[in-house]
């Protein structure tokens, strides 16, 4: 018989509805979960992907060419790690260099935004018959196996998905492994990215809030009717798929509990903290990433460069200076705070875009697409920081030492997170496909 739920407060009610939902009890109902539970229940790991939409310039960030014509306007400065030097516009990150490994010899073959994005995010050449999942979905699935959080396994802040939608999705893993989108860009036609409030960018998780016009009391009435219907139906229908559906709804209702939703409420942070991260979507997204990692979310992605912000074909230095400042505030503060909270050892951070940019500066003071020799950065947990791996020529035009393929980067990331890169998922029900097909780079692993 149904409890008189309307006497309870919302929080209690949701707890009531979600009772017995998490943990092993639901494993037997959901085959996918059961499979995950079998995975190694070691310490929790997290991954934060900082996605640089448009293709960031390596020459003005992490692989500078001072003294060469291609070098451009920015100065190179020392970091905490002797010999490892960054752009002058990344001062906070320079403080964390000993936790960062810069890969300077990345080589890929796609110089188009759509195709490059697909290649880098899935590790697979675009346009094949198999719809590959993005590495983010695969890792969230693998890392989420032991997550007991009511929160989603993969939260993505303001991604520019339109450029290459398949590169952001779960592919053959299915929509249940999609990211939970914050900010709403790309979520639905006509929805704008998070509106910037006077002081800070406002972040909001899609569909987590009640629809407009529906109050808490009303939501409670709805759940009460729903629960009554469900109990009656499940009393004499016992197919496993029915139970899975019911369990999933209760888990979703669980996510709507105020204390769970509070993870997304950045107003709970001091203004001084919010300011340190930077007021934009990226900075606030990095702050959100910290809050989510604290609460056990295994994978968070934050995008910088709404649209194709890093696509600096013209006016490169003005644009990159601004982007670098945003990057340094958000990422730098994130490194600081994760480190202070002793979370950095369990959190691996990746900085990358779809390709690099030409070392040669074009007539418009810009840099163009350049997949031949570019950089990405791995930082934090599992990574041997304080190093630059690989080397490009003095003009930056080619890789001279230790060329790295994208598959190797993804495999290294997996290894740093304690996920075997050759762990397989089944495509189309039967074809085993590895999470990452490259080889982990031992020198980069702690």
């Amino acid at each position, binding site marked *: 018989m149904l409890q008189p739920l309307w006497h309870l407060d919302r929080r209690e009610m949701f707890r009531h509805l979600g009772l017995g939902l998490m943990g092993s009890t639901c494993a037997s109902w959901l085959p*996918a979960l059961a499979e995950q539970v079998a995975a190694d229940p070691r310490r929790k790991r997290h991954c934060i992907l900082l996605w640089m939409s448009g293709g960031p310039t390596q020459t003005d960030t992490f692989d500078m060419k001072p003294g060469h014509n291609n070098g451009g306007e920015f100065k190179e400065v020392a970091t905490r790690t002797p010999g490892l030097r960054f752009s002058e516009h990344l001062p906070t990150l320079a403080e964390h260099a000993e936790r960062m490994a810069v890969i300077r010899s990345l080589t890929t073959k796609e110089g188009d935004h759509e195709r490059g994005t697909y290649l880098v995010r899935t590790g697979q050449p675009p346009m094949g018959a198999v719809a590959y999942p993005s590495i983010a979905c695969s890792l969230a699935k693998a890392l989420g196996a032991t997550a007991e959080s009511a929160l989603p396994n993969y939260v993505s802040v303001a991604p520019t998905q339109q450029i290459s939608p398949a590169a952001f999705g779960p592919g053959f893993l*299915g929509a*249940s492994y999609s990211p939970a989108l914050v900010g709403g860009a790309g979520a639905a*036609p006509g929805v704008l990215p998070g509106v910037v409030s006077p002081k800070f960018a406002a972040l909001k998780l*899609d569909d987590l809030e009640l*629809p407009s016009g529906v109050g808490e009391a009303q939501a409670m009435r709805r759940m009460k009717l729903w629960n009554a219907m469900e109990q009656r139906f499940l009393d004499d*229908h016992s197919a496993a798929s029915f139970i899975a*559906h019911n369990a999933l709804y209760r888990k979703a209702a669980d996510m709507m509990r105020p204390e769970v939703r509070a993870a997304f409420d950045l107003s709970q942070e001091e203004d001084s903290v919010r300011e340190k991260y930077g007021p934009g979507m990226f900075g606030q997204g990095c702050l959100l990433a910290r809050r989510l990692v604290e609460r056990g979310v295994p994978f968070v992605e934050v995008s910088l460069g709404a649209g194709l912000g890093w696509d600096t074909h013209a006016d490169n230095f003005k644009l990159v200076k601004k982007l670098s400042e945003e990057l340094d505030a958000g990422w730098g503060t994130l490194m600081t705070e994760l480190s202070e909270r002793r979370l950095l050892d369990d959190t691996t951070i990746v900085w990358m875009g779809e390709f690099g940019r030409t070392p040669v500066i074009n007539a418009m003071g810009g840099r163009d697409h350049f997949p031949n020799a570019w950089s990405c950065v791995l930082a934090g947990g599992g990574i041997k920081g304080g190093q630059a791996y690989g080397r490009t020529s003095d003009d930056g035009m080619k890789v001279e030492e230790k060329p790295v393929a994208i598959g190797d980067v993804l495999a290294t990331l997996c290894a740093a997170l304690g996920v075997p890169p050759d762990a397989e998922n089944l495509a189309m029900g039967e074809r085993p496909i590895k999470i990452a097909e490259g080889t982990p780079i031992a020198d980069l692993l702690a």
Partner: protein
Amino acid sequence: MGWLITAHRARSCRKHLLAALLLGMAIACHAPALADTSEPLATGADVNRSEAEPRHAAMSRRVDELLAQGQAAAGVTPSSLADDAEFLRRASLDLKGVVPRTSEVREFLADQHPTKRADLIDRLLASSGHPTHMATTWRNRILPAGADPSRQREAAALQKWLRTRFARNLRYDNLVGSLLLTNGGDELGPALYYQSHDVAPEKVAASAAELFLGVKLQCAQCHDHPFANWSQREFWGLAAFFARTKSPGNAPGMMQASYKLVDVDRGEVKLPESEEIVPPKYPRGDELSAEDSASRRSQLVLWLTSRDNRYFSRAAVNWAWSHLFGKGLVATLDELDDSAEMTTNEQILDELAEHFVASKFDLQQLWRTLANTQAYQRSSRFAGDQRQPPELFAAMLPKPLTPEQLYDSFMRLAPPSETTNAWNRAGASNMAAMLDEDPNRIEFVRRMRPPPGEPTEYRAGTLQALMLMNGQTTSRVTAPQESRLLGAIDAPYFSDVERVDALFLATLSRLPSAEERALFVDAISAAESEADRRQALSDSFWALLNSTEFAFNH
């Protein structure tokens, strides 16, 4: 039962099969199968007349008889028959892709005619929703899972192409033939099948083998099939038939308005990591004797769609069965072995396949045959606690609604949305408008799409649940001020009981039980103002739309 005897004889005489095959090829060269790539409605022999032949009723009975034997042997008592409401909802979703309208439910429940279920099946097959649903189902089936969303326009063209063919009940062999023999160009749609497989011989072959032969050969691409007797060479022999089909002038990934496919006179496949060319060879059959003027793929199609190719007809029947029953009669045809004794399900498949061939590959008749079985009418509730082995088909297996079924069923209850109107008004410059695809539907489907797999598995995640609870599609359907249904039942001359009944009929396609009625009437009559009442109606509606019962075809 003459056709049954033929079936047995065919099984025992493989050598004769080959002769028949070659003869079939010679005849089929002039058959409309190859010519049917034109758009206008054909009136010739390639279009099936949907006459109710006594044969299909006999076949339905025969299926039930065989199933009963299997169930008896396993000591399983089949479930009782589903009630009328349950059956109406099931058949509507399976054959038309959408829940029935309230009026249809009321009429069907009131109908006293003894053949009302058979009549319903005929009505559904004749409805305009049937070819649309078949086209959607096929499009999802033949394109790789999670196909690139940027090819939405081509996918819509393919949908339209398929729908035209299902609408006139084109013979199944001709349908498959015209899909595989498309040259693209002005014929928008079917070329996407090749394109989404990169026009790569091995990818097209793997897909075609699974779809049209019921054989999962993907793993034979790299090595011999681990479980069944399919060699790597056999796989590449099949792939060789697609080695000479090319798409000229299309850079990979570039989509032209007219994607062309041509058959050229060179192009071979090699065994992986070797230089050895594999000649075209029919699976489990002969090598292509000599290259003649007909393209390789047209020769494959002749063999493939021949009435003597039992893989072809069995694969079709097994798929149709799984569409209705949530699970195929057999998991795959990989291990088809004519010398071994057949299981009951293999026997059923075999007889249905012969029936399908004898009906001249009449898909509608196949649906009619399957849907008129007692097995299709069984309740999904099983007797006792014992869960029976699903392959006995003693109880109906519940299937989660597909994203398309869910959206279309929602939209039955929704007001015409502003977005949709705006999109309809956008004019011919808008490609989506040209191809009649609702962008909200595309987005909904994209976010709800489960991974490929068994139709009975439920594999959504919390994000999908949140979207259905709080998302804009649900909100639009249930908003008190916008919902067409809520507006209608709010009229003062309705009692609360009538309102609750209407909500149940619209969503669950059934009347509430006395207890359910009391529960919902209580919720509604507790309202103190008109606005409150409208809100209570909206809440009731929301609870029903989000219920497990609504989410499944059971």
